[in-house]
């Protein structure tokens, strides 16, 4: 239930597939979150690097958290270039009742932003520029800068 694609996501197709996958699972609420590349600061698009082994273990831990609440989580993300007004990210929660789904999608998306090992680059003037100022250091970062006694 973690899907990685090269380039932009086919959002209608993915939303349809996920809806149909769970059509008979008796979930009352389905909440997708779709992230789309915005025109900002003259960028032509974004580009993404993903470190899959840690993304997969991070996602597995969220699947377990979802399961403990009777819910299911799915996620799709792009590798490489995604141009303006194309989409690079979908996360979705299914749960029996709405409160769990509404709270879960929020905490999932926020943790995704600060923990998932994905690096974003602006595509600008033909260059691929790391978006450092919009990035977040993973919790626990900096230990290699400790003074060694």
């Amino acid at each position, binding site marked *: 239930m973690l899907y990685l694609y090269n380039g932009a996501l086919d959002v209608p197709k993915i939303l349809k597939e996920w809806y149909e996958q769970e059509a008979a699972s008796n979930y009352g609420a389905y909440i997708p979150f779709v992230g789309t590349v915005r025109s900002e600061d003259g960028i032509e698009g974004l580009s993404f690097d993903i*470190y899959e082994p840690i993304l997969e273990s991070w996602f597995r831990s969220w699947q377990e958290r979802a399961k403990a609440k009777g819910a299911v989580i799915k996620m799709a993300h792009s590798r490489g270039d995604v141009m303006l007004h194309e989409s690079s990210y979908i996360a979705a929660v299914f749960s029996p009742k709405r409160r769990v789904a509404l709270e879960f999608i929020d905490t999932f998306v926020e943790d995704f932003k600060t923990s998932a090992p994905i690096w974003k680059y602006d595509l600008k003037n033909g260059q691929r520029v790391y978006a*450092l100022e919009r990035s977040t250091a993973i919790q626990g970062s900096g230990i*290699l800068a400790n003074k060694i006694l």
Partner: protein
Amino acid sequence: MIRVEFLGPIQKAPLELEITNLSELATLLQADKELSKWLTNCAVAVNDTLVSSLEVSLKDGDKVSLLPPVCGG
């Protein structure tokens, strides 16, 4: 031999080092002018599991990864 990988935007080829713990790695990397700017905001994983302190011993074949600040979505 320990393999050290630099992920995402860190433009540096992997290293193969004879070290036995993360403190030794810290000492080595702090001496690298080009890398030192990354060290304060990089997370560290050993064999793809994030670690939160340098009190980790390493054995032959282990992989250490440096993860700079992230921004998915």
